[in-house]
Every structure is written in structure tokens, then in C-alpha cells.
């Protein structure tokens, strides 16, 4: 079968793929990450490249690229990022949906994120809320609220105290009963029997507050993520270790959870969500009790999460300076409904 993508080190082919669309480039991304290959010495040859492929190649760091059939849009992207590029044939545009979607002037990370979603390479699932109303006593907290968060998308929800931010998260978790409206997480409508069996796909990280001092180790907290899943002891241990290593808290495994700092506790809680393989992560005021250094750690960890597993993330926060550090959409909850702020 004819190779569509070839990567050479000198004259030696170190990677090839005959996959279709952008999948060979995603395979290459995995290959480079797994084998820790420096991209500077490599050259890449692709069969067809439009703007989307050009962005992915740029993001991978290639400086020497030959394309058999390239679009003018792809050529512009390569030029913009200083990639040495040659093509057998240059056409105005290639027949592909992504050629229409990608403008050409976006940051490569944004394009990469969008393409990952289209390629189904994100662990997140969509969250869809429609016509959601909720009242406590006579007080209407949420009123015909609509929200759609795409798979792998990350958003902030802010708003003043008592407007119903935490209630909204609790409704998504199914902790509060939805009387009017509909919440769908992935393929499951919240509150149904099918969702009940799969509700571990939504992970929850509360604000750091000491509710009890009952003895529990960091490892035990992470294992809670698997409490409702039938797993062998070996698999549980393996997944706990992997999750704790991923969030950099494996060395704290046997420490008492209550002796950890606010930042370390957040690491442990995110590890718990990774361990349960949550597809949607809900954070409720995650920086409330964190010092600046711990906030910075959390910022880095969330960015890393975004770059790797890419779960769908909804963060409720009123920490404006921290929110501003992310380039994520910010919604404001006001008068029972959400409006996009930025």
C-alpha cells in the first residue's frame, strides 16, 4: 500500500503511515512523543496537505517539508511559521471540510485542539443543557438555562456568590434533581438508569476545605475514583499509580491526605478523576484556598491535562486574575441564565 506520510532521518525512513485524512499526522505525534525523537533533524513528506495538515506539521516542529499536492493556504501557513517547504503541485484549495473551517490566522494550538476533537482524539464528551430551570423555595435560581460544551472543550463559569454556580454543577452531577429541562452528558441523560450506571464519567473536584480529619491516605483518596467500578486489585493499583504519576503526586501516596498542602490536595483530587477515567471534569472554586504558588501549579496541570487527555472541563470560579491566564471561553451566570463574556 502506498505510504501517505513518510518521515526520514537523513536517508533512513523512521516513520511511515498509509492512513487517511489527518490521522497519519496524529499517529506521528504519538510516535514522536513515545520515542522522544528530536524533530529538528527530521524531514517530512506528505501526500496531500491543506491548511489543517500544515498547522499540525508546524505544531510538531518540522522545518523541512515536501508535499506532493498542497493548497495555497497550506503554503501560506508554512511560510508564516518559517518552514522550508516544497510541493510537486500547488492548488488553490483541496476538497476537504477542514480547509473551509481553518482560517489560517489562528494560533496552532487552537487549530490542533479543534482538529483533535474532529478526529475523536479527545477523552471528553459533550455536555448539553437545555431549558434548565431550578428553584429553591420561592427563589428562582436557574431559569431556562441553555449551555453546550463540546467534547474536549474547556469553559469557565463565573458569577456572584449565591447565583447558582455550584447548584448548576450539582445538577450536572445529578446530586440535585432536575425538575424542568434536560442535562445530557455524553450519550446519557442525567437522572436516567443508564446514566446511573455510567455517572463516573463525570469527575468532581470541590473547593479545598477540610470537612473532616478522618484518617485517609492520598492513595486511598485516588482509589475512590474506582469505588464503583469492577476492577481487579492489580488493575486498581496500576491505574492509581499511573494517575498519581500523571499529576505528580505519586511520592505522596502514603501520606495522610489531611497533612497535604492545598495544592497537593488538588493534585490528588485530579488524580482521582483521572483514575476513574472521567470524561467531564467539574471544578468548583478550585483556587479558593490556594496560595499563589499552588494556583500556578494548578494552572500548569490543567494546561497539561488539556494537551493530553483533553477531557471536557467546566470550572466555576470567581478568581478573575486566575481565569484571565487561560484563553478559555468565560460565561457569566446572571439572573438564572448564562451569557458568554469572552
Amino acid at each position: 500500500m502506498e505510504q501517505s506520510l513518510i518521515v526520514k532521518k537523513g536517508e533512513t525512513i523512521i516513520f511511515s503511515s498509509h492512513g487517511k485524512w489527518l490521522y497519519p499526522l496524529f499517529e506521528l505525534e504519538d510516535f514522536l512523543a513515545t520515542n522522544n525523537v528530536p524533530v529538528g533533524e527530521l524531514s517530512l513528506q506528505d501526500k496531500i496537505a491543506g491548511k489543517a495538515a500544515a498547522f499540525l506539521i508546524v505544531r510538531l516542529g518540522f522545518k523541512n517539508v515536501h508535499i506532493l499536492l498542497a493548497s495555497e493556504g497550506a503554503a501560506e501557513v508554512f511560510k508564516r511559521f518559517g518552514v522550508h517547504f516544497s510541493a510537486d503541485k500547488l492548488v488553490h484549495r483541496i476538497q476537504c471540510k477542514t480547509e473551509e473551517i481553518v482560517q489560517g490566522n489562528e494560533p496552532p494550538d487552537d487549530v490542533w485542539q479543534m482538529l483533535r476533537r474532529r478526529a475523536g482524539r479527545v477523552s471528553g464528551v459533550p455536555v448539553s443543557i437545555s431549558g434548565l430551570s431550578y428553584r429553591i423555595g420561592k427563589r428562582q435560581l436557574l431559569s431556562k438555562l441553555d449551555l453546550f460544551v463540546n467534547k474536549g472543550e474547556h469553559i469557565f463559569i463565573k458569577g456572584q456568590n449565591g447565583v447558582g454556580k455550584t447548584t448548576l454543577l450539582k445538577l450536572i452531577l445529578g446530586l440535585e434533581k432536575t425538575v424542568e429541562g434536560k442535562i445530557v452528558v455524553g450519550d446519557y441523560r442525567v437522572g436516567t438508569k443508564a446514566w446511573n450506571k455510567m455517572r463516573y464519567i463525570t469527575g468532581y473536584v470541590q473547593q479545598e476545605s477540610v470537612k473532616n480529619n478522618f484518617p485517609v491516605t492520598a492513595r486511598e483518596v485516588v482509589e475512590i475514583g474506582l469505588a464503583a467500578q469492577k476492577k481487579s486489585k492489580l488493575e486498581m493499583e496500576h491505574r492509581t499509580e499511573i494517575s498519581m504519576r500523571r499529576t505528580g503526586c505519586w511520592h505522596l501516596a502514603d501520606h495522610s491526605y489531611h497533612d497535604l498542602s492545598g495544592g497537593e490536595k488538588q493534585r490528588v483530587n485530579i488524580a482521582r478523576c483521572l483514575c476513574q477515567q472521567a470524561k467531564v471534569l467539574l471544578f468548583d472554586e478550585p483556587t479558593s484556598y490556594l496560595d499563589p504558588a499552588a494556583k500556578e501549579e494548578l494552572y500548569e496541570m490543567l494546561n497539561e491535562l488539556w494537551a493530553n487527555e483533553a477531557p471536557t472541563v467546566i470550572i466555576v470560579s470567581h478568581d478573575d486574575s486566575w481565569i484571565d491566564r487561560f484563553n478559555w471561553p468565560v460565561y457569566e451566570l446572571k439572573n438564572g441564565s448564562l451569557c458568554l463574556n469572552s
Partner: protein
Amino acid sequence: MLELLTYPPVLRGFVVLMLSGITFPITGVYLLRMNLLPLRFMLMHGALLGGAIALAFQINPFWTTMAVNLILVWFMIRAARGLKADAGFISIFIMVAAIGLAFVFISLFDVQAKDTMGLLWGSIFTIDNKLAVGFAAIALLIVGFHFFRYRQLKAVFFDPVIAHSSGVNEKAIYNVVVLLTALTVAVAMKIIGALLIDAVIILPALIATLHAKSFKGVVAWASIWGGLFAFAGFFVSYWARIPASSAIALIATFVFIGIYFGKKIKK
């Protein structure tokens, strides 16, 4: 001293005491963690109500007490959920209602209050074979539930909201825990009496939380301490000619004080 154990009632009492000592502190851990300490008082008053009913109608006091306490616990769970109120708060209300009702029975059926109060004192030597089998069954139930639902219990005890988001049916686990605890408290009254019940159920768990770092450690140590107190309490009671329940309570208290101050000095 071991020749004591050649007498069947003593041997039976010893075995039941050891079984209870090792397994009942597991529910003590649940009581402590779920902040259900007022539940014991409700069950003690439930025992008085059960006793009054049993004496009024001339029926078995042990099983009547057990049934009354299970009904009270069921009512407490329903009321706490329905009113979205703290279970401890509801249990105080039920406790007062139970004792009020007990006095109604005592008054209406001319029951001797002294006989009812007698139910608050237990003795390991009054246990017959049937009751011993019942104890063994409850001990097995506690251990079985703990091992088969260990991961879910750990999640609920850490945080019911987190447990829910992990997929655990936290309400069901909570209900079973409360019912199991009620059952344990009700039967423990038979061997140690209502007023010293903490010595078998709560104190070993409390001591374990002073030094254990993990949930697993707390449960294991609570069982170890409970077993040691039961063993030591049995022989000390014979040696000092005091009731076994008092011996257990005093030994547990000395150990608690020792560990508490040991920790303070270490700090």
C-alpha cells in the same frame, strides 16, 4: 484461670465477647465517621421502649427491643432525608419521643419501671446457644459487608458527594451502615449493657483514629484493640471480681489516656 472456660455458659460468653470485641468496633468506626454518635442514645431509649412493650405484652424483650430499634432507625433515616436535616438532630427528637412512649406503656400496663431499667444492664453469662448463633451471624454480617463494600464505604466516608460522582450509590450504603450499626448496638446491649456500650463499640475505634493514618488502618486497629480489650476485660473481671463490661470499659479508658498523652508528649 483457664479452667473457667470448661463451663459451657462461661465459654459461650467468652466466645461471644471475643467475637463482639473484634467485629463490633468496625461499626464504631462507621458511627464516628458518619457523626452518628447521638444514634446510640436514641437506641438506648429505644431499648427502654422495647423493654416496656415486651413487659407489657409478655413477649421476648430481646427481639422486641431489636425490632423497636430497627423501626426507630428506619424512621430516622426517612425523616432526615425528607426534612433534609441532620440524622443526629432527628435522633434526639426520636429519643425523647421513645422515652415518652415508654412511660406511656409503663403507666398504662402497670409495668414495673425497675424491670425495664434492668434491660440497660447486660451480662455475657446470660447468652444461650441460640443467641450465640445470632451474635455469630451479626459478626459475620458486619465483616462480610465491610469486605464486600470496602471501596464504596471508603468513598462515602471520605465525602458522600465525591462518592456519588464516582458512581457509588451513597444513599444505599448510608442506609445499610445505619441499619447495621443499629443492629450492632441493639445486640451489644445484651452482653455489655446500654450504658457501657461505648467500651465495645466506640472506644476501640476512637483509639484507632488517634494513631492510624489510613481508613484501612483505622478499621484494622479498631478490631485489634476491641479484641484485646475483650480478652483482657474477661480475665481482669474474674481476677478483680468486677463485671466484664466494667473491666473492658476501664482498660479501654486507660489505653485511650495512655495513647492520647503519649502523642502529646511526642509532639
